[in-house]
């Protein structure tokens, strides 16, 4: 397959040479009417149930068809009124009250009320739902207790230690936590829970005269005083809560009435996203879906902002090959290559000269995890030496060539106003000194080091470049090993690696999403570097009253993290894409999110010389 793409790219590059003087890539006028948009989604969505989705392809569908309490501005991503028109927080920042828009409806005309939100959020946390992103909702008071089926002990009047002892006698306890809603009672979390342990624990609690049950949805910090008011109480104040529910689709509502109707009729409720059952609350609804082929969307007639939508029909193709998608773009069968299609790297330099090419920052960082349990890597001086001996500028310029930004820290400039930490840059002299200090002068005596990556030409080229840099600068003879994706993931998860490539994409545009990866409680922290001090620094930052102060404190935490160096940052992603000159309203942003409701087609834009540049201005049409 890969060879085929290389061949395709070579031939296409040849053909590109023929029209070198052409400033635009392919057609410049639409092959359809002014009310249509044709774009690619890079594949078949796995799930596009907002509560259960965890894939980027499904995410695009959800972002267009569903709407949360707030919606991101197409350019700045700042939360703006969506299903909610206004909202306020309590003095302790723990309680959020959302006031829903009057007369909101689902696409089938059924009224949408605050109960739909309460039900949808509780559904994600319901352990029976099997939502992969359920832990995103642990911010809600008792979200973790409900989802992990903790034992809720109430009406307990004796001393706390007696209960703790009784629980510890059943099985190893993870934590016992008082109700954050202040209703009295405690929640008991076991380290390795099972239904058998839960039964025993409830019996033990009852033996002490208490009432005990597996935590139900009633314990959640969600309430609906009336049809238009939705009140959310959080476990602890979360400064980025609004930003999170703004872009994280897991918080968007699912149509309770449709799901329950299917369940009642004895069918699988997973079928609700089929076109014949599909109901949504966002700007567009799914009308037709051909598996692994395409999806057709039309405007939702009951959408509150229906008047501002100019598109009548959106065709979302599911083409997997980037090169094929680009050919279709050239031929005018796609107006925009879409969020899940990258430009093939062989094309990047050539396409950069085209006027329909756009380029923007993107919230992903590429890094190498260090396994801090490994004998060769447990000394942080060795980790720093490896980092200092890696010339990231050269990797970006000579290896990846996709105009990425070399990274010497984990979080890039500008995410929610965050200032990038300088970090340490390429310094082979210092690297050699550190390695010698660690007891391995000239790399001598250092146990063998292997870089693992999942099979891909790019990952391989980067690993080879770094292998060569370490050999040249430090005298280390590192090995490289490629593994099939699922095998690679398994090995990372089990700590069966030394240096492993991966990275992180922000779930929501706030720097905290990157910090959360390195917390000692995180399942995504593959380095096995667990540091309570770091956890505390992050918590301290999030407790800050003033948002500016919070960013300053987060920066302190990142400095601490960089000093420990559980992972070696390599580069920050950028996003390159092509969009036809007649597509208007498609704005560049950090998350590469482009709501169709803001897009309109101007077939004469090219002729008139009014082609948008994605940053609020126009493209210079000069010859």
């Amino acid at each position, binding site marked *: *397959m890969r*060879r*085929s793409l290389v*061949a*395709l790219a070579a*031939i*296409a590059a*040849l*053909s590109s040479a023929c029209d070198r003087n052409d400033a635009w890539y392919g057609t410049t006028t639409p092959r359809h009417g002014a009310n249509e948009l044709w774009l690619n989604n890079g594949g*078949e*969505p*796995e*799930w*596009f*149930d907002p509560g*259960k989705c*965890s894939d980027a392809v499904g995410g695009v569908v959800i972002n267009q068809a569903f709407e949360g309490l707030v919606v991101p501005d197409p350019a700045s991503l700042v939360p703006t009124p969506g299903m909610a028109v206004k909202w306020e927080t309590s003095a302790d920042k723990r309680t959020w009250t959302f006031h829903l828009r009057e007369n909101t409806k689902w696409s089938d005309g059924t009224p949408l009320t605050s109960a739909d939100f309460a039900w949808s959020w509780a559904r994600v946390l319901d*352990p029976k739902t*099997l*939502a*992969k*992103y*359920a*832990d995103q909702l642990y911010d809600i008071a008792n979200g973790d207790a409900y*989802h*992990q089926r903790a034992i809720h002990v109430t009406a307990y009047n004796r001393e706390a230690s007696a209960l703790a002892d009784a629980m510890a006698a059943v099985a190893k306890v993870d934590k016992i936590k008082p109700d954050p809603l202040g209703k009295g009672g405690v929640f008991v979390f076991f380290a390795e*829970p099972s239904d058998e342990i839960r039964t025993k624990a409830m019996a033990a609690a009852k033996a002490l005269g208490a009432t005990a049950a597996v935590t139900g949805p009633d314990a959640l910090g969600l309430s609906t005083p009336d049809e238009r008011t939705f009140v959310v109480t959080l476990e602890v104040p979360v400064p980025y809560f609004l930003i999170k529910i703004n872009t994280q689709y897991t918080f968007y509502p699912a149509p309770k009435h449709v799901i329950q109707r299917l369940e009642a009729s004895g069918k*699988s409720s*997973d*079928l609700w*996203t*089929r076109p014949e059952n599909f109901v949504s609350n966002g700007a567009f609804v799914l009308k037709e879906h*051909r*598996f*692994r*082929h395409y999806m057709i969307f039309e405007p939702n007639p009951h959408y509150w902002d229906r008047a501002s939508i100019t598109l009548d029909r959106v065709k979302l*193709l599911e*083409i*997997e*090959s980037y*090169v*094929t*998608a680009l*050919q*279709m773009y*050239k*031929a005018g*069968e796609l107006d925009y290559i879409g969020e899940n299609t990258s430009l093939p790297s062989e094309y990047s330099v050539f396409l950069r000269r085209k006027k329909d090419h756009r380029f923007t920052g993107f919230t992903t960082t590429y890094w190498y995890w260090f396994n801090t349990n490994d004998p060769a890597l447990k000394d942080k001086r060795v980790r720093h030496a490896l980092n200092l001996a890696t010339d990231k500028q050269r990797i970006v310029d000579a290896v990846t060539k996709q105009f990425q930004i070399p990274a010497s820290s984990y979080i890039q400039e500008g995410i929610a106003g965050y200032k990038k930490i300088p970090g340490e840059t390429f310094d082979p002299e210092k690297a050699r000194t550190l390695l010698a200090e660690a007891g391995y002068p000239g790399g001598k005596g250092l146990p063998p080091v292997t870089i693992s990556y999942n099979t891909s030409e790019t990952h391989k080229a980067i690993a080879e470049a770094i292998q060569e840099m370490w050999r040249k600068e430090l005298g280390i003879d590192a090995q490289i090993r490629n593994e*099939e*994706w*699922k*095998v690679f*993931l*398994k*090995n990372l*998860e089990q700590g069966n690696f030394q240096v492993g490539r*991966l990275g992180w994409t922000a779930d929501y545009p706030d720097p905290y999403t990157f910090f959360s990866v390195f917390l000692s409680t*995180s*399942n*995504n922290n593959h380095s096995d570097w667990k540091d309570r001090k770091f956890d505390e620094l992050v918590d301290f930052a999030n407790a800050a009253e003033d948002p500016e102060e919070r960013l300053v404190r987060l920066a302190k935490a990142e400095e601490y993290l960089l000093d420990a160096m559980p992972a070696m940052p390599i580069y920050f992603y950028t996003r390159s894409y092509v969009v036809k000159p007649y597509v208007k309203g498609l704005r560049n942003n950090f998350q590469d999110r482009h709501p169709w409701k803001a897009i309109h087609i101007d077939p004469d834009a090219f002729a008139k010389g009014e082609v948008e540049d994605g940053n609020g201005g126009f493209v210079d049409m000069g010859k």
Partner: protein
Amino acid sequence: MRRFLLRRVLSLIPTMLVIVTIAFVLVRVAPGGPFDSEKAIPPEVKADLEKKYGLDQSIPVQYLSFLKNAIRGDLGISMKYQGRTVNEIIADGFPATLAVGSFALIWALLIGISAGVIGAVRQNTAWDYGAMGFAMLGISIPSFVLGPLLVLVFALTFFWFPPAGWGTWRHLVLPGVALGTVYAAYVARLTRGGLLEIVRQDFVRTARAKGLSERIVIWRHVLKGGLLPVVSFLGPMIAALFTGSVVVEKIFATPGTGSYFVDSALNRDLTLTMGMVVFYSAFLLLANLAVDIAYGFLDPRVRHE
């Protein structure tokens, strides 16, 4: 004949069982699972997901329940796509693969047999060299080179056909040609070789001696026997064309089943992988059976007793 058929059909059952069993064990012992992902999911959710799809049970138990359902024609639910059954996924994708495969088959036979006949009838002339040169070229150019070349010439230069996609007959042509050309080349060489062998046989000499026209000699006598090598090649060829090609389906964005086999294995979509194994192996075995039967009709020397 009837006994032969019965024996062959019955022998398919143990063959199927061996294929399915080996495949089942292989996909279960491969490291990594369907619910491993880049962003870790909570361990309890993962355990519950595995439970939902029966992955918490021992391999023999899983195997038996798989067999039980498969015999009833139920291949299970995909572990990757929301609420999609494997039967539904195959039913959705197979028509496209079948359409491209049929086009490729017709193309391969039409071009291949014509070139082969020309080569044999005009042996050692410019016609022969031209036809066999084409065949060599066809064999040497893999579909991943031919496909993009066709796109470049016929889609992006002359705009005769769409560069990729699906929906009309025009979408069938380029992938069909890309897929079928290699086989056309094989067919051409097999036809020429088969024909040349028959041409030298005594019964052909007799036919000519009786004064039959060259056209009738070739059509009625030579071709029937000369095509036998092509018929035996038909089995593997039909199998290869109708199971689809990952490469061609990706290049032309054809929504067929060709890429499911590879993709489902990479995704560890265990149910879909097993479904494809069952579907393809049944298809291959039946295609081979059909060829064996056809052989009996074409070659009087082969009699199925």
